[in-house]
């Protein structure tokens, strides 16, 4: 019997899309700031920097809200990558490399997703720190010195930007190829599940996320 269950509560959906818009804008404006002739997406540097700096506040708020929610509702149990998730990696890799068709049910997210989603939190903190060092060098000179100077902060900021580009691409690919049901759930909140067959969502996890 098929029925609809809530996969993504409203809070998660809102923060997901806010963060998506912010990070996408940060990546696009960031590339322009990096090389305005090569990535000519904006009219002026001023425009690109303004967008980058508005979105930097949005992403800070978005990160804070998402982390708060994860802790307050115990949702971190779904998403936080733990050491023990490592031992599930070989099984996940076998699945992704088409060596097996088995995708064991690890909970709301598989270990790879947990690694990427938790990693984004960590990388955002690095971007915020290196970004603030570059944005307000007079106010936060100490921040620059943590990274060994502003130039190193700038290099880290740029390389981490590439990690975002790559992981966002993988995320998009995997979610789109997992089927429209999962993609739709990030808009509506609901997935259709067949009671007879175990699904990506177990009942315990649902209770946690509700």
């Amino acid at each position: 019997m098929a029925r609809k269950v809530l996969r993504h509560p409203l809070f998660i959906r809102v923060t997901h899309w806010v963060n998506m818009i912010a990070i996408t804008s940060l990546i696009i404006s960031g590339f322009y700031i990096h090389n305005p002739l090569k990535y000519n997406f904006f009219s002026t540097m001023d425009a690109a920097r303004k967008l980058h700096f508005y979105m930097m506040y949005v992403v800070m708020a978005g990160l804070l809200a998402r982390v708060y929610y994860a802790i307050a509702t115990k949702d971190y149990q779904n998403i936080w990558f733990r050491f023990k998730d490592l031992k599930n990696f070989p099984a996940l890799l076998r699945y992704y490399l088409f060596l097996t068709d088995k995708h064991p049910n690890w909970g709301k997210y598989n270990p790879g997703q947990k690694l990427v989603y938790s990693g984004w939190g960590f990388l955002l903190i690095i971007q915020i720190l290196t970004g603030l060092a570059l944005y307000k060098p007079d106010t936060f000179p100490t921040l620059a010195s943590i990274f060994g100077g502003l130039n190193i902060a700038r290099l880290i900021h740029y390389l981490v930007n590439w990690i975002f580009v790559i992981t966002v691409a993988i995320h998009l690919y995997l979610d789109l190829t997992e089927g429209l049901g999962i993609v739709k759930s990030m808009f509506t909140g609901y997935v259709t599940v067949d009671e007879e067959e175990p699904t990506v969502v177990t009942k315990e996890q649902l209770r946690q996320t509700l």
Partner: protein
Amino acid sequence: MNKISRREFLKFASFTAATLGLSQSVPEVAYALENAAKGQPPVIWIQGASCTGCSISLLNSVHPDIKEILLEIISLKFHPNISAATGHVAVEAFLGEAEKNKGKFFLVVEGAVPTKDNGVYCSIGEKDGRELYFSEIIKELGEKAKAVIAIGTCAAYGGIPAADPNPTGCVPVSEVIDPKKVLNIPGCPPHPDWFVGSLAHVLLYNELPKTDKFGRPKMFYGGIIHDNCPRRQYFDNSIFAKDFSEPGCLLLLGCKGPVTYSDCPTRLWNGGVNWCIKAGHPCIGCTEPGFPDKIGPIYEKMPEVKLPGISASADTFGEVVGAATAIGLGAHLIGNIVTGRLGGHKKKDKEGEK
């Protein structure tokens, strides 16, 4: 030795006060400097792995001119370039002065400290038939000195002598002498005002000026070049010079102004005549720790990414990894289609190994 007149002296004092942003306190500055000129406190200047450029840069000082600084304002007991004595007489002269003024004198160090093979790559004289290694000498003098001024990026952070592959094992002065005692005046070379102003501050307040985490006085290295650059309008409006004949912001020619702390754009060089960016050359980040290696190629925006076996520009690095990801995802998509997996694994789920 011709003494400077009272009038000239006050002119210098007011100039110094202005450098310090203390125009209200000219008399106090004059007083402090006069005291200094009476031989209190003495200064000993020594050079290690350096090119003497920092001393030469000091020649650029207009008010006061170099002669006044070296002979009248500070009580310079020893400087290798102007020392009449040579050989062991010179060595004994500065060792003697250091002993005589223990705890009172200021040590100015120009140049990095070669430490490899016990410091054999830099010997600055002889004593009792034995070579005196720079690394030993500055340890000894550093302990006796009241404070140490590391002048130039080499002394402050290692600079060019410490650049990769650093064959002589050069380190900054603050790795050999207690860093709390050391004031860094980086720059390749430093602006004369940065040195004279810091020295005046020390004489006036009898303490080292406030510094940032890299030991640089905040009064000179408190902001980045880019925020005060006269070409900033070009930057904001995206007018970028593509070669040296074009007007515009020098960012894409490798300008390190956005990552370099110093007051060059407002202080100007050569007595206010010009400075790097006004002369059409990108800032090379000469006051930054890690200069030149970590500041990167002079005409490139970013330093290279170095991994074992690979070194590539940050751009190439990102683009290669990005392309590899695209190829990987494309290959996987083919796999997905071939195996008929597209659309999700839901139906094939088995109970999880939790």
